[in-house]
């Protein structure tokens, strides 16, 4: 095949290249630049090499301690979120209607929390949980529970988790629902003929057929919960103490609270790296599953 060689075509890529450079590459390189320096204000910077990175990974220093504590806290938070939202999302998807007007009604109602700005979600729950004017807090007090997310670590965690479950379970449910809808009726009919119980239908048909959407759901929910900032910040401000200070909240404290640009830049890079690595792992797992499917098709 004869290809026309025309290097001028590169000019067509130029606008995109410029946009990406200004929106992503240059800011990122600025962060890389900051992460190697220290500043005492007045726009004076001093070379610090990989000092911040060493400190970041050393739990005995102040920076390292704060980073690693918030990192573990954040990973634990993500694990709890996934452990609740994924099974709950599946259960919700399974119990949704398959046809009729109620499908549309369910979809709209479930999409509602996803449409609310994160800040507003935080505000809703901040007020909802207050013992004086919030419905939840008030009711809990009336039935004799000493619930207070401002002073009690456990209450603060519970509030943040319930809020996230409320906000994001529908995403998992909607994804699972799409996966369920794509299963041909013949599978259910065959299972019926094979005498499968409800549980057997779930484990033999529904769960395997949902595995791809579930992978996407887990990826999205992991990313979002690992990067969570707005909602807990609005509700608890990272407290009581540091008990709900997740990595991004810690980062903002260092960057904007203390104006330690070097430390914050180093932290953001490591944070970013962790997210990219996890993304890559998920991507590899997903494409491998896809490749397997293609091989099967080839054989058939």
């Amino acid at each position, binding site marked *: 095949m004869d290809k026309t060689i025309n290097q001028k075509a590169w000019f067509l890529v130029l606008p995109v290249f410029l946009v990406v450079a200004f929106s992503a590459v240059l800011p990122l390189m600025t962060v890389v630049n900051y992460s190697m320096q220290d500043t005492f204000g007045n726009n004076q910077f001093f070379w610090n090499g990989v000092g911040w990175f060493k400190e970041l990974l050393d739990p005995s220093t102040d920076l390292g301690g704060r980073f690693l504590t918030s990192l573990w806290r954040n990973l634990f938070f993500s694990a709890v979120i996934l452990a609740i939202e994924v099974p709950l999302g599946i259960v919700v998807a399974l119990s949704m209607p398959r046809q009729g007007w109620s499908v549309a009604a369910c979809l709209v109602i479930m999409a509602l929390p996803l449409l609310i700005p994160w800040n507003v979600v935080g505000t809703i729950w901040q007020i909802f949980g207050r013992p004086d004017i919030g419905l939840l807090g008030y009711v809990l007090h009336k039935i004799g529970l000493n619930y207070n997310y401002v002073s009690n670590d456990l209450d603060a965690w519970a509030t943040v988790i319930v809020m996230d479950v409320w906000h994001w379970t529908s995403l998992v449910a909607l994804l699972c629902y799409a996966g369920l809808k794509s299963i*041909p009726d013949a*599978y259910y*009919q*065959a299972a*019926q*003929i094979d005498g499968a119980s409800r549980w*057997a239908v779930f484990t033999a048909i529904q769960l*395997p057929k949902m595995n791809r959407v579930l992978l996407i759901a887990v990826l999205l929910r992991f990313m979002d919960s690992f990067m969570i900032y707005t909602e807990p910040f609005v509700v608890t401000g990272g407290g009581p103490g540091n008990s709900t200070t997740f990595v991004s909240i810690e980062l903002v404290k260092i960057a904007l609270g203390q104006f330690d640009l070097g430390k914050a830049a180093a932290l953001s890079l490591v944070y970013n790296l962790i997210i990219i690595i996890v993304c890559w792992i998920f991507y590899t797992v997903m494409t491998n599953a896809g490749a397997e499917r293609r091989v099967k098709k080839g054989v058939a």
Partner: protein
Amino acid sequence: MARIDLVDLAHSYSGDEAPGSFALKPVSMTWRQGGAYALLGPSGCGKTTLLNLISGIVTPSRGKILFDGVDITPLSTQKRNIAQVFQFPVIYDTKTVRQNLAFPLKNRGVAQPEIDARVAEIADLLDLTPYLWRKATRLTADAKQKISLGRGLVRSDVAAVLFDEPLTVIDPELKWQLRSKLKALHRALDLTMIYVTHDQTEALTFADTVVVMHDGRVVQSGTPAELFDKPAHTFVGYFIGSPGMNIVPAEVRGREARVDGHVIALTRGYGGFPPGIKIEIGVRPEFVEVAPPAPNLLKADIERIDDLGRIRFARVRVGNAKFAARVPPGFSVPDRAAGLVFDPAHVHVYANSLLVEGSS
């Protein structure tokens, strides 16, 4: 082991009793134990509906289904001793071939040693033994269809196996193999098999009784030879055979049919028909020959010749009607005009599309 009787069975998906809304119009018939049946008809004729009614996936809006005289209409699919193979292979993705085959027995609480024995037996029958430990998803479409079938056969209680166009996704050269396999299985196991298809070759090679459906109605059931020689409905004549039966409007009186002013002799006598009834004669292309034009033959214009290798068919025009007729070997085809020679024994008379038996 079961004889299946359908008693005034009908189904309408909308639940509406208006005559036009029935996907399956009322039918009564018997499927004998051990028979190989094919349900043949074009898409949308109600054959899958009938199949799903028998397997219990769909509950009929009217009528009863009897297995060996016992009414099983209200029973769920699980409780009927029926297996079904679907158009697209249904396999359980995460399971191995062995686990797939064992699944129906596991669900029914059969003891493990018995499961192992049955699975081994059926795998052997279906030539699946080498794949038993493989993941079922990795296999080809025909192997998957065999697994679907195997899941039905492992159950010792299964009386009938229903196939819903099972060869749709199979490669042509494997279709033959799988079809012969089904035939062999039918001979080896004393099972009633009902095979839905819109492919007449599949139906005629598989079944000893072919049930032809059209527009929600069973129009004829019989052996392939009966369907070919004596179609009970013009649709059967047209649908079975390639090319299909020639059907032309005619006037029939006594032992004569008149087409386009020309008289065609009949072997049977027909009484007068009341006015307002559509009278047609039907004759298969195999029983009409083209000949050089002659005054005593029906005149036809040859439009083209289809050479099928073994046999040649002339596509001709008689008045406004299209006709297909056999070209005898060694016959050199005239330019356009030709005459048609009919074999009177194979000319049938249809009144309002239904076969009329004349008196001999």
